[in-house]
């Protein structure tokens, strides 16, 4: 009844190639976009923006970035926190050095700088694979955080090593700094997420994505059929770095407003984003969203239930939260190793057959 191709006739190749070929899916996508762009900005308040929506949007961009590298191209990376720091510090340096340029371009430029750094750290991937590559990217994580702590040029020689985002506006509306409105920061991040997701989706279902997946599935076979591993792997690092850099820039400039490399972009950030794509689903753009939503919403939801509703002491709730999140990660890995995206796929298959499953 729902979600099926029957009666949905395609009359051109363009129609047949579109991202959501099934009508029901396509309408769902339009509804989500309408709600996100047309309804939420009118209902949003500071708490919803800062507790749920901004972290969700920003982590989704980071998860998309890491998913391209790890999920599609099969290169395990533990350097996400460090690469986000590159985006954040690049954005800070650009914001303070060129105050007249629109913040929108700073964020994109920060993504570009991160792409270059990420490609440089991706060079070892041509020689080493798997766990060994993970260790090499781990080195990137520690090196980058150390660098931003050590070299005071990166934080404009401030006494404490903190970087602070000054106020910047888009069309006269402040999106960074102190006097921001919740809807403005939300929409600013949402635009970046929407564009990133569309680019990522189209990259991964086109030739480039097929090359990445070929490398992921078996690199020797991929090389034999004519995929250049050097270009495929490094392009995955570059594209991944671009998205992660954008997310780092937004994380610092729009969400936190002030940051410090070791505190905000430490190794735990790398693991958090990695958990997001593992729980959400490796090799799936939807999985990046689902994983980010899961790991952002769950702790806040547990806190709301435990502290505000049941009135338990804050430390007990914090400990229970660690237990529940940890247990859920293990349960997910055992029960559904392909993540939330796989659950979604199964649900769609069921919907196609309903009400006559065979």
């Amino acid at each position, binding site marked *: 009844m729902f979600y099926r191709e029957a009666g949905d006739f395609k009359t051109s190749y363009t129609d047949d190639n579109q991202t959501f070929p099934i009508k029901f899916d396509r309408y769902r996508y339009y509804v989500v976009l309408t709600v996100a762009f047309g309804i939420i900005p009118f209902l949003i308040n*500071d*708490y919803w923006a*800062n*507790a749920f929506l901004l*972290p969700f949007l920003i982590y989704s961009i980071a998860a998309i970035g890491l998913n391209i590298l790890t999920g599609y191209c099969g290169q395990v990376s533990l350097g996400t926190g460090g690469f986000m720091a590159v985006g954040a510090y690049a954005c800070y340096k650009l914001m*303070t050095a060129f105050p007249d340029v629109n913040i929108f371009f700073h964020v994109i430029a920060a993504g570009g700088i991160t792409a270059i750094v990420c490609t440089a750290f991706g060079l070892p991937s041509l020689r080493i694979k798997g766990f060994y590559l993970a260790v090499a990217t781990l080195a990137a994580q520690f090196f980058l955080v150390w660098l931003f*702590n050590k070299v005071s040029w990166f934080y*404009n020689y*401030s*006494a*404490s*090593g*903190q970087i*602070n985002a*000054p*106020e910047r506006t888009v069309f006269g509306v402040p999106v960074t*700094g*102190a*006097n921001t409105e919740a809807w403005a920061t939300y929409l600013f991040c949402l635009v970046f997420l929407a564009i990133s997701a569309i680019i990522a989706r189209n990259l991964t279902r086109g030739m480039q994505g097929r090359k990445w997946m070929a490398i992921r599935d078996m690199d020797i076979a991929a090389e034999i059929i004519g995929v250049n591993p050097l270009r495929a792997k490094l392009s995955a690092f570059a594209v991944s770095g671009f998205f992660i850099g954008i997310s780092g820039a937004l994380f610092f400039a729009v*969400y*936190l*407003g*002030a*940051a*410090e490399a*070791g*505190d*905000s972009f*430490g190794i735990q950030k790398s693991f958090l984003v990695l958990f997001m794509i593992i729980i959400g689903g490796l090799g799936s753009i939807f999985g990046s969203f689902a994983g980010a939503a899961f790991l952002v919403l769950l702790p*806040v939801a547990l*806190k709301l239930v435990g*502290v*505000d*509703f*049941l009135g338990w*002491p*804050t*430390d007990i*709730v*914090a*400990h229970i939260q*660690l237990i529940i999140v940890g247990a859920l990660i293990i349960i997910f890995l055992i029960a559904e190793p392909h993540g939330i995206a796989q659950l979604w796929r199964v649900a769609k298959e069921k919907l196609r057959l309903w009400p006559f499953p065979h």
Partner: protein
Amino acid sequence: MKIKLTTMALTALMAAGPAMADLVFPSLSYRTGPFAAGGIPFADGYADYFTLLNERDGGIGGVPAKLIECETAYNTEKGVECYESTKDEGALIYQPLSTGITYQLIPKATADGIPIHSMGYGRTSAKNGKVFSHVFNYPVNYWDGASVGINHFKKQAGGSLEGKKITLLHFNGAYGKEPIPTLEALSAQEGFSLNTIAIDYPGQEQKSQWLQIRRERPDYVLFWGWGVMNQVAVQEASNIRFPMENFMGIWWSGAELDVLPAGDGANGYKALQFHNVGSDFPIFDDIKQYVTDAGKAAGAGDQIGTVLYNRGVYAAFLAAEAAKAAQAANGTKEITAAMMRDSMEALTIDEAKMAAAGLPGFGPEFQVSCENHGGGGMAAVAQWDATAKTWSLISDFEASDSGIIEPLIMADSKAFADENGIAERCN
């Protein structure tokens, strides 16, 4: 089940409903994570003081104080979430007990008109009230601490530090890096050579740092640590037999639980303090009578009288005094965050007020003004006695060297004002 849920929803509604009538003091505490050892006693003291005011005096000026506790785990993202979830409940003042969270909140709280009191932490240059309208760091800041510590070593060395070697062992973050500019200026003035050694979060492993200290043999070591790294540092210092009287921590590295694990080896370790230590004050009788014995103590109730518990009490005392002054100045009991801010800017703490609160001689006397949000910058040195297991002050509250610190504060706050386009106030 349904009835139970409805009742719970109703109770939650009722609890949320009349909240506006209370004086709301959010407590962004951390009872979990690597810094919980320091966060728990502070949060207990902060909560117990307000419980005492409610139980004994019926609140502040007859209005009950309401404490909203929110767990941050010293994590800046959770701190932001806590801030956003509590600010609409009528929050009067934020004391986040974390330099990182303070940095996040400075622009947000300034825009929302809620004062921040970062007592002995946070952004040092917030002392300049001309730039930072809603941030206060009285009675003392890190740069005062660095200066008072160096003055103490100078006295200990017989009046001159010429040619001495001093090492700053610090947490590799905003908090630990704060004193470096002051110490560099002091090193140029006093003629000692300064070396800084960083400890990365969370600091359970410091072998290489102490190996470096052992090799370089500094005359004195200043220590900016927090949480679990304090215990490790004191233990390592005792392992390499570093003379403990030449090893001094900032006030966040000088609690009982920092030195107890090292046993006798920690004897003689020094730490700066900006308030008195011990439980020999009248207020502790009241806390026992109204809070502990009534079963209303926060947390496990086993921290009473420790250094950090006292600091929580002191923080709550300063907040309550400002609220009291705001009630008097505005002739209303229901004060707002804006009234609270004005009152903090005109706050005077003298011996009479401390004695009236049951805290005679607890801290230095100081005054806050529009230009000076940092108080007098007075700190004392405390020393640990491992046999008696007590801290005791071995000096009076002494002022820092403002000739060194003032220009640095002006330079740093000016940089912030330029970056953010803030016009100076108080003119």
